[in-house]
């Protein structure tokens, strides 16, 4: 391992059972340079990457590096109440947060005057959609062959009176706090950190441990999934041939 995770938390059976359910499918969007769909619980997001490619509109071009353009969008049917199509403030904010996190893992200096365009379409949104989107993006970047320092992983933790848990409820109640993180692989570095609700100093420390442990499991699943996908691509001809 490149870096020992600093987490002292051991995932419970229910934490593990929850994360194990995560489904990832690489390459669904054939027109894009890279893509990945991720599903977990009430979350279903598709991320597609184009780039590096020419910047459009041209005036946004940076002669020294690639710009990262991130567009996160919720489909109208992604929530119980239909959402009007088009960007809203929350989507714009999430676009920015994800874009900043992903820029951390890329080598933008290598591709001056280009754009790396990352698109998210959320088919179904629930608690944890942000870190899952980050995971989908890191897989899509790999599929696109864009060099990255590390896979972006993540996890979410819900904290209330009974302690922290990785498996989220379908809706947050007022006494619950949601902590959602994006990590640089299985390291202790966070590239995304969002807290919705109140969190005491003690809780904060423990919650970060839980989040890191969860992220590490997600990271391992991502790696396995990538290897499996590319190995399977080379084998598919075998079945047909025999």
């Amino acid at each position, binding site marked *: 391992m490149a870096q020992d995770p600093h987490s002292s938390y051991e995932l419970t059976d229910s934490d593990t059972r929850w994360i194990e359910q995560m489904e990832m499918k690489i390459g*669904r*969007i*054939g*027109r*894009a340079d890279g*893509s990945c769909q991720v599903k977990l619980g*009430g979350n*279903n997001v*598709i991320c*597609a990457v*184009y780039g590096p*490619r020419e910047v*459009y509109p041209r005036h946004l071009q940076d002669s020294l590096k690639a710009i990262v353009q991130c*567009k996160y*969008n919720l*489909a*109208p*049917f*992604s*929530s*119980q*109440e*239909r959402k009007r*199509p088009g960007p809203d403030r929350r989507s714009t904010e999430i676009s920015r947060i994800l874009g900043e996190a992903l820029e951390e893992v890329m080598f933008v200096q290598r591709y001056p005057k280009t754009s790396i*365009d990352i*698109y998210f*379409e959320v*088919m*179904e*949104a629930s608690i944890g959609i942000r870190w899952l989107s980050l995971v989908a993006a890191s897989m899509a970047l790999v599929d696109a062959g864009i060099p990255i320092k590390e896979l972006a992983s993540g996890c979410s933790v819900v904290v209330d009176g009974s302690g922290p848990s990785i498996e989220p409820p379908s809706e947050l109640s007022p006494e619950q706090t949601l902590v959602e993180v994006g990590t640089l692989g299985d390291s202790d570095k966070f590239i995304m950190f969002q807290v919705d609700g109140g969190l005491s100093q003690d809780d904060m420390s423990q919650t970060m441990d839980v989040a890191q442990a969860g992220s590490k499991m997600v990271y391992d699943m991502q790696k396995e999934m990538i290897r499996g996908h590319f190995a399977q691509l080379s084998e598919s001809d075998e079945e047909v041939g025999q």
Partner: protein
Amino acid sequence: MNGGEISSLNRSFLLGLLDDGRRSDGRTLEESRPLTMSTNVVSTAEASVEINLGNTLAIAGLKVSKGAPYPDRPSEGVLNVNIELCPMASPDFELGPLKPDAIELSRTIERGLHDANVIDLNGLCIEEGEMVWVVYIDIYALNFDGNLQDAGFLACLKLLSEIEGRQDEVFGEGSSNIIDLSARPISVTMLKIDEHILMDPSDEEESTGSARMTVTVDSEDNVRTVHKSKGGQFDGDDVIRCVRMAKVVAQQRRDQMF
């Protein structure tokens, strides 16, 4: 292969193939691409479907809500079909000018559905002038390889057929006749390139061709709607050929869907 800027070499190659009765993906001129659909892909929609027509992929969801009717149609509910051309679906979409016209696509689909009387707008009325049911169908095109027209229409058809059997649940008791798919209308789109008519055009073909024709055929082989788009010209013979080809493909698709 990329759409949009097709090289002149590939354009000539494509035309040469057509003269031999072939297309670059190996199909004949009359053949449609494989169609697959899976439902219930999203739990937050009243009905949802993922549709693949060749490499064109879209996910569509149907949601209903209550709202005010249009002032000039106080006793009618609303069917609102919206096609979203997601920027991820094609390298050409973000650039703008080469994009298909989403509004035209949405309107043509709506018209095709109305002309086949699949939904009784009066049945959607809750309180005249005050409150009606609004049925929203949102079609998210996620991977574009041509013919969103048919992909979108068939997705709508599938969604409506999903709720046809449980209208009570969706619209409240006593609402069993609002949706009526007995006509089994099917949309079929063709493209003209020089003197050839191509069934179910791909993106590369759409970039090369001119006039497009969409025909909706019902289960009695009647033509319900005809829509010509994208400039170019069809003569009388072309129209007859189109309708003939459309009826064959409509039946194939119908057999698959119902």
